[in-house]
């Protein structure tokens, strides 16, 4: 019967994590082996020969104490340094990563592609192309875990989290929910399928008849009446959203921040938390509780699309396949 010691390594990061893990394991084995050996050796060599022997006391040695404090600490600092490198690489998606949106919900993963395709518990990604996953939760904390890629991130309700990877090997790998989330926690599992580029284009082309995510978001934008104010209105009650995404926004209290996914989300759900300079509070109603996380993401993608080309829906007007790849 065979079982592996390492899970399959199918992302650009996986081997690096494995090397660090191997380094840690070697240090652990050496240290443990050393302690075991010394304890065993002492126990045998200095075993009690007769019942009333009393060995000479030894009080200690400052040199030894300092040695066995400093050396382990230096070794541990190397763990820290190496680990931090990987951690930050993990946290910094390349700018050309393609977006995929994942919503965790008791007990399933809902996956949306910019091209409008949707899946449950199945994630399809192309090989050798960086993929950035935006994570949202409808209810409790979940954790999106792909062992073969050595990555995991909690999915916390009320905010967006992101993770990224570059799959390097076609195949099917586990998706697990790693943060306990209720009764069917162990059933909140799925598969990620890594496909060669051409297959992936074909796969994308076979789905997504509801239009791209930006299209879907654009429709919502109309239905919810956002457009009457944020697009058509010329009275200056609310900011026009064209070109907002990615820019630096200034607020009434003087603070500024980049308009990113989290900011768009906050503005929809809690419009008065930060009011843009030159506008008034209490003009926009809150949409808390009226939108699912998936719809929110569609709106975010729509508003993002306004920043890219200045026209709704344009970047995804071509074949869905191209859209997924060309997001810059």
């Amino acid at each position, binding site marked *: 019967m065979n079982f592996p010691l390492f899970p399959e390594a199918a992302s650009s990061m996986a081997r690096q994590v494995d090397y660090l893990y191997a380094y840690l394991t070697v240090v652990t084995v050496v240290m443990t082996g050393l302690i075991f050996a010394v304890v065993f050796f002492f126990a045998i060599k200095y075993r009690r020969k007769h019942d009333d022997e009393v060995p000479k006391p030894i009080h200690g040695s400052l040199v030894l104490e300092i040695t066995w404090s400093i050396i382990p600490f230096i070794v541990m600092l190397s763990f820290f340094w190496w680990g931090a490198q990987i951690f*930050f690489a993990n*946290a*910094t*998606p390349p700018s050309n990563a393609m977006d995929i949106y994942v919503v965790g919900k008791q007990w399933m993963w809902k996956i949306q592609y910019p091209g409008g395709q949707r899946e449950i518990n199945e994630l399809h990604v192309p090989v050798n192309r960086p993929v950035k996953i935006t994570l949202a939760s409808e209810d409790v904390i979940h954790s999106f875990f792909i062992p073969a890629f050595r990555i995991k991130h909690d999915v916390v309700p009320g905010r967006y989290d*992101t993770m990224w990877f570059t799959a390097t090997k076609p195949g099917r790998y586990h998706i697990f929910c790693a943060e306990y989330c209720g009764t069917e926690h162990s059933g909140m599992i799925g598969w990620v399928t890594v496909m060669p580029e051409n297959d992936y284009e074909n796969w994308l082309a076979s789905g997504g008849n509801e239009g791209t995510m930006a299209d879907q978001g654009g429709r919502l934008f109309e239905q919810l009446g956002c457009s009457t104010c944020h697009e058509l209105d010329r009275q200056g009650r609310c900011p026009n959203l064209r070109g907002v995404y990615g820019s630096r926004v200034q607020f009434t209290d003087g603070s500024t*921040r*980049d308009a*990113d996914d989290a900011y768009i989300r906050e503005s929809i759900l809690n419009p008065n938390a930060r009011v843009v300079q030159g506008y008034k509070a209490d003009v926009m109603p809150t949409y808390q509780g009226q939108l699912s996380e998936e719809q929110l993401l569609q709106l975010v993608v729509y508003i993002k699309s306004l920043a890219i080309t200045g026209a709704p829906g344009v970047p995804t007007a071509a074949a869905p396949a191209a859209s997924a790849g060309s997001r810059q």
Partner: protein
Amino acid sequence: MHSVPSVRTYVTIWAILTVMTFATYYIAQIDLGQWNIVIALLIAFFKMSLVIFFFMNLKAESPLTKLFAAGGFFWMILLLGQFFVDYMSRTWMPGGKMW
């Protein structure tokens, strides 16, 4: 066991505390921006010190007791400080760019 402070000391401390209470109440009505909360907390810390050192007579207690009293506040600062290691730095990384 300990020296007993005089009634006059206690009443003086009380008077200062009461004045401070009204001071903090009225200063809060003036808009000093961020400074409002700073001043309010400084006054609160001052009042606390008076209560601890005089009413609770910490100044006459042993160094050990002083150490424990200080330890309590140190640990509370530890709690708050490390919350803010997270919360202060959460906004530091737009786009996740590190070094």
